[in-house]
């Protein structure tokens, strides 16, 4: 009964999101899980005041990166930070087709479906998305989350408890070529490669299942 009321209050895209994640039958079997490697480019690192410029994502299923199932979207900006333009190269009035934040977020949630999110420093990207969702009076994301940084910590033999690995460091360790750094979809692809290589390594010493992988991520679990 309570759910019924909740459903009524939420916009359709959001209730669909909740329902899909909660009712997904895929998580038990690793081969069936659709992972979405994700990266966002933002105007800065302030959760309150900065905004998402671009979301890039590509799906992984059964150890394959599905290029046909990828996502790249640019968002119109009210807030603009000259400093970060140097990093991501997305100008306020660049050539990319840009959507409003609302349109973009709804499209992304729709694309996400019941997928498990994989990112590098996932907390940052997910918080930025949650902030945007909050502005639409919904959120936070219901999706299950993984972080390549923490999966690495689980695999690495040495004591890396306190170390935070950058994407570049992991690329070095896992021998991933870095193309298109600092474009959202480029970084998403790099994250996807890392994830494929990490899971291949991980399953040598551990049974590969989603819940153990999620448990590597003590930070996000908090």
């Amino acid at each position, binding site marked *: 009964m309570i759910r019924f009321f909740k459903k009524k209050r939420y916009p359709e895209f959001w209730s669909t999101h909740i329902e899909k994640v909660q009712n997904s039958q895929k998580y038990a079997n690793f081969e069936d899980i659709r992972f979405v490697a994700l990266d966002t480019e933002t105007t800065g690192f302030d959760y309150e005041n900065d905004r998402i410029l671009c979301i*890039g994502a*590509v799906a992984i299923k059964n*150890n*394959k*990166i*599905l*290029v*046909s199932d*990828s996502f*790249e979207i*640019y968002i119109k900006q009210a807030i603009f930070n000259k400093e970060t333009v140097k990093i991501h190269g997305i100008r306020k009035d660049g050539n*990319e*087709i840009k959507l409003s934040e609302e349109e973009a977020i709804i499209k992304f949630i729709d694309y996400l479906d019941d997928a498990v999110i994989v990112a590098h420093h996932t907390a940052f990207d997910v918080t930025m998305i949650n902030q945007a969702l909050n502005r639409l009076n919904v959120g936070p994301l219901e999706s299950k989350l993984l972080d390549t940084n923490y999966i690495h910590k689980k695999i690495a033999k040495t004591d890396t408890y306190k170390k935070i690995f950058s994407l570049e460091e992991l690329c070095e360790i896992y*021998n991933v*070529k870095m*193309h*298109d750094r600092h*474009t959202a*979809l*480029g970084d998403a*692809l790099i994250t*996807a*490669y890392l994830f*494929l*290589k990490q899971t*291949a390594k991980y399953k040598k010493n551990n049974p590969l299942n989603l819940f153990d992988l999620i448990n590597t991520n003590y930070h996000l679990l908090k």
Partner: protein
Amino acid sequence: MKNTISERIFDFLKNYPPFNLISNETLMEVSQNVEIQYFEKDQIIFSQNDNPHEHFYIIYQGSVRLYRFVENEKLMLDICDEGDLFGLRPLIMNENYVMGASANEETILYGIPIALFHDIILNYPKVSQFLIASFATNTREPFSEKHKGKLFANVSAIQKIEHGFSEIQSANYNKNPISCSPDTTVQTACIIMTKNIINSIIITENDIPIGIITDKDIKTKIGTGLYKITHKVSEIMTSPVVTFHQNISVAEAQIKLLKHKVSHLCITKDGTNKTELVGILTQQDLILTQGNSPSLLIKEIKNAKDAETLKHIRTKATELTKGYLEQEIPIYFVTKVISEINTAITKKAIRLSVSEIGKEPPAKFSWLALGSQGRKEQLLMTDQDNALVFENIAPAEYNRVKNYFLELAEKVTEKLHIVGFEYCPANIMASNPKWCISLEEWEQQFEEWITDPIPEKILLSIIFFDFELIYGDELLNNKMAESVFKTIEKNLIFLSFLGKVTLDNPPPLGFFKQFLVEDNGENKDSFDIKSRAIRPLVDAARILSLHHNIRVNNTIARYEKLMEVEPQNSDLFESCANAFKILLQFRTSQGLANNDNGKFVDINSLNKADRLKLKSCFKPIKNVQEAIKLRFKTSQIPQI
């Protein structure tokens, strides 16, 4: 919608065949549907007998081993590296994989959806040609009929090109067209036409063509009495004229003539009927263009007075070869033309020598070409290999006759040397007393080689059994051939020895980066294309032809004959013929580029497409060698 990943994949794929052959839009569609896969070292990508995947693969990073289990023994077939394709079997037929693939090192693959590629094969003949060149010659079970169809159906597309070679040649036309003004009378025009022996005249105003009168107009308009010979040409001319620009190819001319149902084209400065007339092209000119240059050279050879002139003509023939290869005219045709020219040169050298001696030959004789010239496969200027046979002579006359022919041969080989055919270092020439002998001596010689097949004699028989009559008595030549086949029939074990030698040169497995991948694990970076690829195919064709009493020498013709004699193996022989064509073309282009005999190929200088092309030829060699091994039971022959 912008997509950074597929753009990057697009950039990668467009560097490699066959993806460089398709349009940007189609390639973008392919790029958007790639599946990226990662494999750890030694991880299996697919196993032998696995169900076919929905994708075939191109290696993005790393390398992949292809292997096959035969009676529990694992055979390494190839190592593929960046840009190589594999797993194409499902593209060709819906069958399980006949080989396994595993990662040779950490590897990233792009999976290309097969469903997408079926359409591409249909729409891009060049893609299917590439795939045929790479894989049609690559079939693992060449002895089966079932491979016919589908992708292979496109072979006919290639064959079509073979017959249409002249269409890309530029058309020759008359650059001094005869014209007259509009107020000329029909009578005057007819007088001009008769005087110049032409069947048409163009009517011009300020050098701009406005009309044409042909024989047909005279017949239908004057002969019928509709007009009189006193009328002006402008009254009976056909106007406007059909025009074309100066760079006209045979194909364009043919199409234009057919389209406008005319027999004459006016060639003008800019191709329109608003500019100056510069020439006239007739149906007749087109007929002459086809096969023009070679026949001209043959004519020049016939008129040549000395070896120097022949040398000059042979240089022109080399230019002709270059031109043919640049125009991608099929190698089979090129070899035919060049062999005809070489034969004509040798004939002329013999005639010149006979007249130098000043005495007609004292007996019937035949001049024989051996080796590659005997097989009519000689495209580059290589060593001369020849021999002479004369009719059986009474002992009393023998020395006198032999001395005449030795003198003749001395003069002929000297002339051929001047032309540019180097003396044979092994002295396999008609000027050598050993190879300038009578018919019965040849028969004894053959018998000795066949009945006592020690290595040196087998090597000689390989060279001599490809003899071809160049000049002289056909009967002598036929009798020699008969004696070879008869003696072999009585000594079939000889074929097993010959087979053994044939197998001495197994082809390499393939290329890995700048190295050859050899069966025994040895790597090399320069490739002896003659001994390792061409000769094995030539040898295989010879032994199978001797086995079947097939009396042709040309390797391609031999395989074609073998396809008829053994229809159950026609796939194998077809793949051999295709591989041979590719290799010969390759050797010739390399030789022309480096101005040498093209024997060695520097693998570092090859691009990916060339490497794939070469590699595709190795599989048929291996297959035909397997067939020989089984058929002639070569394993029973002791090591020699």
